């Protein structure tokens, strides 16, 4: 299991590609890998977005993700789980989040990946502030 909050851009597909070997997991030991990558769109709520600042609560974010990741690995019997999340200044097209789940069979990989993503979206302590194009306006995203 690897969980990292990254202040610099990352290549999600390169990270997934090297991950099993990096963890000492042999390619023949799993049969399924489910991956989700969330990336920044250049539009939101009808506006063109120029960039976005991603803030988080250092310490709590890592704890929340690690606790739930451990529960997900146990619940779905995963072979391996990788979670990367950007913070800092982000531009359209940049990857924001990567969740990848490896397991023997596909249902566990799909369900484990999705469970982790839903938890991350609803509980993990990240906040987004968009800067709109053509104006000096900044706005916090989706603060219900």
């Amino acid at each position, binding site marked *: 299991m690897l969980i990292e909050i990254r202040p610099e851009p990352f290549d999600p597909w390169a990270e997934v590609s090297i991950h099993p070997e990096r963890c000492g997991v042999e390619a023949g030991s799993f049969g399924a890998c489910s991956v989700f990558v969330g990336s920044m769109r250049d539009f939101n709520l009808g506006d063109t977005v120029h960039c976005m600042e991603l803030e988080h*609560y250092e310490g709590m974010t890592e704890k929340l993700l690690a606790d739930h990741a451990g529960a997900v690995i146990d619940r779905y019997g995963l072979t391996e789980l990788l979670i990367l999340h950007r913070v800092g200044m982000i531009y359209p097209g940049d990857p924001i989040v990567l969740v990848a789940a490896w397991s023997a069979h596909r249902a566990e990989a799909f369900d484990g990946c999705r469970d982790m*993503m839903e938890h991350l*979206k609803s509980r993990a302590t990240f906040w987004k502030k968009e800067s709109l194009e053509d104006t000096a306006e900044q706005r916090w995203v989706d603060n219900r």
Partner: protein
Amino acid sequence: MAISVKVFASLREDLGVDRARINPSKADTARQVWQQITSREPPGNLLCAVNHQYVNLDSRVRDGDEVAFFPPVNGG
């Protein structure tokens, strides 16, 4: 010792408070910690954590705790 307070995102900007230290004799619950940093009513969507665990505003706080207030999260 003291209770350490952190405020995040839009709430930090609205209150004009980032970090604070509260005398534990003045706050037994997370709600009383809130009242020490602002005279405003807690917003309906306010989230609170004590020592990195989500709690409700009536949870007890102790000397040395880290209490955080923040708006709904939206990572990913």
